[in-house]
Structure formats: structure tokens, C-alpha cells
């Protein structure tokens, strides 16, 4: 195995990757087997699969938090946005967003300044000094996304970023993420169990099998943005994806 710089066209490339982990009882669980995928520069790849198919393991491999047992992972520097927002309760919203810059040893005033610029864009103006527990779930998630964005890394790994939100807030957040990525394009690996979310946001959707996860279907989403979930083409692709998922689960 090796972790090498990415190729010219792909920011992230995994080939023949396998990874096992030990569960709480100490027995080995094969999370991924022989998984290969590529994410072209500045495109969004959504990874969909049944729960426990190794999606989180996949993101941790991309972020370099784990190493593959076999195969090759090569990617540009990646940052993780975990499922839970993991904001620090003793910091203000602004300081939480600026955390990546503080870690990169920028001065407090510079870090806050950079974060403040983006606060307004994300509809967070006026909440700079609020503590995380004073914010709504959607706002906390936006602050967490800002923290991810401000790390300046070319690859963003989003682990079910809107999974904990109610349907209305989730739809708003998807629209807002789509906007943010069009303004500031990045390479994104988006893990989700919501097929519709995958089709609305991604350039390409990869469907994983139940554990051990491997790619069973790939769907290119070549539709103009912003996409509406009620659009005929979106619904057609959603059906295709659900079918692929269902076949895999029936097996």
C-alpha cells in the first residue's frame, strides 16, 4: 500500500482498497474489499449504501486517519466534516468556524476576520458571539461546514452532514451547500444514505454493497444546477439508484 500524491485529473483515487477493523469484541470486521473509485478535481462524488457498509471507513481512508490493509489510496490533503457537528461548546460560533486557521497558527484576529467574512454569506451574521448550544441544528451544521471550508484543503469529506436535521432544514442546507460549492469549488466526497440528496448534490453517485463494501453501481448525474427534487430527470435517476440499492440488498 502507499499514500501518494493524486494524479493530475483526480483529486482522490482509490484502487483495490481493502480495510478491516476490530469491533468491540475484538473480532475482525471487513469494512471494505477491493474498492476502487476516483473523484475528479472539483467534482462532487456521493457515496450511498446501506448502513454499516464502510462509508465512514472510506472517508477516514481519504483523510489519512486510517491506512488501507491492501490497495492504494492517493489523494490531495483532505479534511473531515463528521456526522456530528463537534463544535467546541466553550468557543463562540465565530471561533469554532475559525478553528482550522487557529490550528494553522494564524493570529486570532486574522482567523476571526476570515471567518466573519463568510458568516454573512452563510446567513449566520449576528450569531458570531453565540455559543453552539444557542444555535439551531442547521446553524451548527453551517458553522461546522465553515470550519471545514476554512481549513483551505482541496478535498472535503462530508459524513452524512445533514442526517440529523429535519426534512425542511435539510432541503435548505442542500441548496445552500450547492451554492457554496459553486462559489468556491472543491473536491467533495459526500457520504449519505439519502439517495435524493446524492442526486441533487453530486456529479456522480457511487452505490456500495452491504459490508464488506465495494462499488456495485455508478450513476453519472449530468443535470444542470440548481436541481430540483421534483424534476423528472432527478426522479428518474433516483429510481435507478434505489433499484441498484434494492437489488444489492435482496441478494
Amino acid at each position, binding site marked *: 500500500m502507499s499514500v501518494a500524491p493524486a494524479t493530475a485529473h483526480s483529486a482522490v483515487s482509490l484502487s483495490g482498497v481493502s480495510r478491516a477493523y476490530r469491533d468491540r469484541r475484538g473480532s475482525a470486521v471487513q469494512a471494505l474489499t477491493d474498492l476502487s473509485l476516483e473523484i475528479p478535481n472539483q467534482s462532487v462524488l456521493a457515496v450511498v449504501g446501506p448502513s454499516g457498509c464502510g462509508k465512514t471507513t472510506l472517508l477516514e481512508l481519504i483523510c489519512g*486517519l486510517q491506512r488501507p490493509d491492501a490497495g492504494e489510496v492517493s489523494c490531495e490533503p483532505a479534511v*473531515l466534516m463528521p456526522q456530528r457537528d463537534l463544535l*467546541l461548546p466553550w468557543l463562540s460560533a465565530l471561533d469554532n468556524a475559525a*478553528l482550522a486557521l487557529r*490550528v494553522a497558527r494564524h493570529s486570532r484576529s486574522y482567523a476571526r476576520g476570515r471567518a466573519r467574512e463568510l458568516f454573512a454569506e452563510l446567513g449566520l451574521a449576528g450569531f458570531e458571539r453565540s455559543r453552539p448550544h444557542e444555535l439551531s441544528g442547521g446553524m451548527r451544521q453551517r458553522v461546522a461546514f465553515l470550519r471545514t471550508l476554512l481549513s483551505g484543503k482541496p478535498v472535503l469529506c462530508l459524513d452524512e452532514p445533514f442526517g440529523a436535521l429535519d426534512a425542511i432544514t435539510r432541503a435548505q442546507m442542500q441548496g445552500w451547500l450547492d451554492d457554496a460549492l459553486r462559489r468556491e469549488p472543491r473536491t467533495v466526497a459526500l457520504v449519505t444514505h439519502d439517495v435524493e440528496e446524492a442526486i441533487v448534490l453530486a456529479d456522480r453517485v457511487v452505490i456500495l454493497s452491504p459490508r464488506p463494501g465495494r462499488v456495485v453501481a455508478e450513476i453519472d448525474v449530468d443535470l444542470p444546477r440548481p436541481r430540483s427534487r421534483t424534476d423528472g430527470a432527478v426522479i428518474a435517476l433516483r429510481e435507478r439508484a434505489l433499484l441498484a440499492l434494492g437489488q444489492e440488498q435482496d441478494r
Partner: protein
Amino acid sequence: MRRNVGSILAPLLLALAVLGVWELYVDLHGVDPLVLPAPHAMAVEAWNNGGLLWSNFTITAEEVVLGLALALVCGFAMAVAIHLWAPIRRAVYPHAVGSQAIPIAVIGVLLCYWWGFGIFPKLFVIALICFFPVVVTTVDGLAAVDPDQLKLLRTLDASRWQAFRFAELPAALPAALSGARIALAVGVIGAYIAETSTPSTGPHAGLGHEITADLTALQTPRAYAATAVLFLFAITCFYALSIAERKLAPPVNRQ
């Protein structure tokens, strides 16, 4: 404002009730003052010996404050070392537990041999008695940080020190302060143990010393009066720390 009045009035009323029952019990049963002096006898003793109690109190108070400061600094430093380096944890933790079983009288002479009759042996004893709760609570607080939080900081390329500074240290602060409060509660009795188990010179050697001397001299009411001073001092210290805590750790930090 009403809450403030209540928080002073409620303990005051309880104290008055206890003292009243105590007074009645001693008077009605004719208990010997050598066994249990009546509250009014304590008050008379305190009034007549105000100067003596005060000068002994200042000595004990100095010991408690400095000894606690030493305990907090050492306990916190040890907790951080134990948290950051597993070998230190393995080597040091069992001995830190064992140190709590040392009867101080056993090492009293040694401490005097090293540092003489001054204040330092007493500070050492107080610190020895008080550091342990600080270590245990701080180590647990540092270890209780969400592992996902540390993972996140790693993907932001945080160094070990930065993970400590940004996540672990602030998260452990409330636990460390709880440890400090426990340390404080045992700090005053620690001063008594320190004074009675290490030799001192002169008549003014702290309240603990005075209590022992009074008890042997059958001056029981005065020993009780001195004890009352210790009782009040412990309460004062506890609330002083609570105020410091409010300044140091904002409310959201204490979940």
C-alpha cells in the same frame, strides 16, 4: 437578591437550630464541659482568647492557602503528565494512590530533618493530602474528551499540543475545578494533621497545634472555639473558590 438572602439565611438558621439543641442538651443533662462544652462556653472562650485565636488562625490560614496552591499546581501538572505519557501513567498512578495511605506522623520527623521547624514541612503535608483528588478528577476530565473531536483536529493537522490546548484542556477544566473543591474541603483538616504531626516552635503554631495543646491541658472549651474557627474557614475557602470558578469557567463549560 432574594436568592442571596436565602442562601445566607438558610444555613444561618440551621446553625442556630443545631446550636440551640446542643445548648439544651448540655444544660439539661449536665454534661461535663470536658466532654462537651456548651455553645455559650465556646463563645465566652472565643471572646476571651480573641487575640490568641486570631494569631493562630493567620498561621493556619497561610498554611492552607499556600499548601492548597502547591497541591493544585502539582496535582494538575501530574494529571497532565499522566494523560500525555502512558509510561508515566503506568509508573506514577499506583504510587499516587499509595501515597494517600501514608500516616503523616510516620514522616513528620523526616520532614523536620529535611526542612526544619518552619512552614515548609506543613505545606508538604497539606499538598500530599490534597493533590490526589485534583489528579484523579483532572485525569478523568482529560480522558473524557470525545475521540471524534480529536479525530477532527487531526484532519485539521493539529499537533498533539494543539489538540491538548484546543480540546482536552478546556474540556477538563470543570472536572479539575471539582477536584480543587474536594481538595479544599480536605485542606483544612490537612492543616490540622500537618501541625500536629510535624514539630513546631513557640506558642503560636496554628490552630491545629493549639487544639491539641488545649485538649491535653483540659481546656476543652477553647479547643472547641478553635474548631469553630476552622469550620468557618473551610466554608469561606469553599465559596471563595466557587466565585473564582465562575470567573474562570463560563457556565456553558460546566455541562
